[in-house]
């Protein structure tokens, strides 16, 4: 009995301590404000049709979710659409039902054919271009950019094949990411690799804030999903097929679907290999990472009232009827820039009433998330209080009964 009581008091003590410390359910500290995508199909030859279908499927997905073409670098190593063997000239399908032509008029390919090589890929990542390389072939990211890097093709133990003639190793990619980190050219990176033994390609990463998804372990192959008899080749890989099944249900602006959920939607049984999701020195709680942090393009917005600045040498009439709240003359109870609210006795403008909400204008954390964290903290505290009350109540009852 005594031991039980001691235990309950110790438990109570721990609970009380937790009550006084705020519970931080999320440690989001990123300054993310734009998204980029680098989508690479590194294979050539007609029989690697499925690789271009994989790449174009992801291309259309990120476009649908909001990333504009100016922020997408698409690298396709061969021209399957206009291949002599293509019985659907100018079209590429990722499904035997031919529901969607992936190669429509709305596809902007930045690197094509033999331009897709290891040197150009690494130059793209590190930013070391020749001076004559145009802007659309440069990764113009900054410290607020989240980058989705998707690679598909043939690979092996710590390498990815380019053009069937050269390879990029895991160390090269890791070093490239480190150089990006040194020059603050990314906020976070999501690295998705779909090749044989894909998971080995991120075994050497050592830079922070990188999440990596691979579809197969060392010694495993990555398999195609199905064959299209009319085209005569496999049209899509299993990993991409099941990824699309999940991603097609995400609407633009989705702020709930986490990366973990996306990853867990693909089972080893389905894709016939062992996928892996790994986070490298991720600043945020990995469970809070959303799919839309990389796949979409949700811009944070901060609304603000204007300060009471005016312009010098203003020849306007002082009594102009410009209502600072807009021209609609709507009678609002809280009129932000109404001079009557000022305590001024003079021409200088006091910032008290016109000061924008300092928190709002200086923070780029979405207000919704901050409120959600606070709400969760409150629920937790209320729960703890109820728990303490219940412990006291039952211990008293126990004493009475004994």
């Amino acid at each position, binding site marked *: 009995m005594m031991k039980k009581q001691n235990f309950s008091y110790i438990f109570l003590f721990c609970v009380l301590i937790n009550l006084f410390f705020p519970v931080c359910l999320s440690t989001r500290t990123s300054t993310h*404000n734009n998204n980029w995508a680098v989508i690479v199909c590194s294979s050539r030859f007609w029989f690697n049709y499925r690789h271009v279908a994989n790449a174009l499927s992801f291309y259309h997905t990120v476009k649908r979710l909001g990333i504009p073409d*100016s922020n997408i670098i698409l690298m396709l190593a061969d021209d399957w659409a206009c291949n002599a063997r293509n019985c659907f000239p100018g079209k590429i399908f990722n499904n035997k039902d031919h529901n969607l032509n992936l190669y429509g008029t709305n596809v902007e390919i930045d690197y094509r054919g033999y331009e897709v090589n290891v*040197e150009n890929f690494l130059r793209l990542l590190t930013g070391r271009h*020749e001076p004559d390389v145009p802007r659309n072939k440069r990764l113009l990211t900054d*410290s607020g950019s989240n980058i989705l890097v998707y690679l598909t093709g043939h690979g092996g133990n710590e390498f990815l094949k380019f053009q069937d003639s050269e390879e990029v190793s895991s160390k090269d990619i890791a070093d490239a990411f480190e150089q990006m980190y040194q020059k603050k050219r990314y906020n976070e990176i999501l690295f998705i690799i779909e090749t044989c033994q894909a998971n080995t390609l991120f075994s050497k990463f050592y830079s922070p804030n990188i999440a990596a998804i691979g579809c197969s372990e060392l010694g495993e192959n990555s398999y195609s999903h199905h064959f299209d008899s009319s085209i005569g080749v496999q049209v899509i890989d299993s990993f991409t097929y099941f990824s699309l099944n999940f991603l097609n249900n995400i609407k633009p602006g989705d702020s709930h679907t986490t990366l973990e959920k996306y990853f867990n939607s693909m089972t080893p049984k389905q894709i016939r290999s062992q996928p892996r999701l790994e986070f490298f020195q991720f600043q945020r709680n990995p469970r809070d990472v959303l799919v839309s942090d990389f796949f979409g393009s949700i811009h944070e917005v901060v609304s603000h009232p*204007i300060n009471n600045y005016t312009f010098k040498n203003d020849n306007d009439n002082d009594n102009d009827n410009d209502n600072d709240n807009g*021209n609609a003359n709507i009678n609002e109870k809280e009129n932000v820039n109404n001079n009557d609210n000022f305590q001024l006795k003079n021409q200088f403008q006091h910032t008290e009433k016109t000061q924008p909400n300092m928190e709002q204008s200086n923070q*780029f954390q979405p207000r919704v998330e901050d409120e959600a964290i606070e709400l969760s903290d409150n629920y937790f505290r209320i729960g703890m209080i109820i728990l303490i009350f219940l412990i006291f109540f039952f211990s008293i009852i126990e004493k009475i009964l004994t």
Partner: protein
Amino acid sequence: MNTTLKVLLSLLFVILCGSPIWYHTMTVHQAKLPTNKLLNLSSSANPKISIQIKLLYDEEILKTSNKESFLSQLKKEVKKYSKEFQEDFLTFQIKTHPIKLQKDYNNMDDPKKITKLLQESLSFQKEKEKEKEKEKEKENQGMFEPKYTLVLLNLPKLSEGIYLPPTGRLVWINLGESTNENKHLNNIKNFFSIFTCITNTTKFTTQTDDLHISFILLNQDPRGRVLNWEFEKAFNNYLQPTIEKLNTRFSEITHDSEMIAYADLEQSRVHKSEAINQNNEKEVYYSISKNTLRRVIQIGEWSSSIATNKPVLRFILFVPGKRFTPLFINRSSKKNRDAFIVPGIGGISINNLNNSETQLLNKNDLRRPFLVFANQMRLFLGIKNLNKFIYYDPSNIIHDIELDMLILNTLIKNLNEAKHSLLSLHTLIKELPYMEIPEEIRIHIQNAINGIQDSESYINKKNYKSAYFSSKRAIDDCNRAFFNPSISSQLYFEMQNRFAIYIPIFLPMLAPLITKLLKQISSFLKKKKKKKFQF
């Protein structure tokens, strides 16, 4: 000729010809980098920038319950505030001393006059006309010294608070008629908060300070109304002075303007509401909530067509179509707003046109939107909004003190980044021992080192303008060195690759020579053995 001799001569010939060829083709030119200087510089601490503040007060005017104790407390508190508000690279040197204000300020109620009188009376104490002119010239060229004068006054006709004049570095605090010393000290504390006005949170980009600003008039629905605007007049009138000030002292800001039509709104996200206007009539208006704003307006598609190497900051004046006029952004507290900023993209101001027949937005119509853009530009430059206890001249968008702090913060940031870049580059070059290092990289690294050293020496000489521009050049050279296209591991071969290249060339030549030589040696040895046995 003896076979052995032939073999030996052939071998010698191959080695003598082949070695220089191998050496010259395999040797990589590596320019000698100033490694020691680079490492010393990277590990050295930045010099501290000292902000000098003269706190002046007239003992006769000062209203406190106990002057002596207030003055002694003031000196202690001021030291505390200077530590509280100082950044890593900034130190405050504060001197307090009494003055005698010759004019009677008690009956004054015009802050501008008071500022002018203070400036005249304080400057006459020490400087002559010529020196004044020299200082003005320096100001015009962008040179400055972070020396500030803070004057304590007790003016009954004005509100209590800090008065920040538009130009110059004289600030005065009106302590009012109160004798409450804690209040006075609080006001003085608020003054120090001006020096923490710079933040990276709202900054448009941390990569560079040179910007291109694109002003876009976005007409949602031009059917029946083709809009135009008097952009040049409005810009020259409202924003040109501020941008010129920035161009002289801080960074290169260029601009252009554009008109775009047919911007889509996701109609399902726009709410129709009713309100009662000032005439007690019902009016319909449209609103979008802040949470749906990010999806409602397709910012990514609204790019300007400018092609520039600088980051493009967009200021968009959005004119909703007749169908969605007037349009506002709702906040949760039901206040309506008509402007918002999108970090990394720019700012948007919604301009509702009451009169559907309007076709030209003249300079007056553009006054308010340009005010909004001016506010947004402050945020994008990283300048926080002023503390609520500070009175400022509203005709000056960026005050001198704020610009001083922006320059100093950026200067130190540039130095830190340049040193970090050089160190990263050094580490990278070390990891690629077979990489060619062209003279170009050496020159850029040397220039970067010189730039950093110049900047630091200018800081010590208190010439902050030159220090700032030197730091800018240093970081530019660092980036040119770091992003040089020749730094690519794929271009260079490691030692085993070198052998792999030359083995197919030399092995066929050397193999028969070596085997022949070995044969000759073994036959020579056999002969020797035979001779022994014969004996």
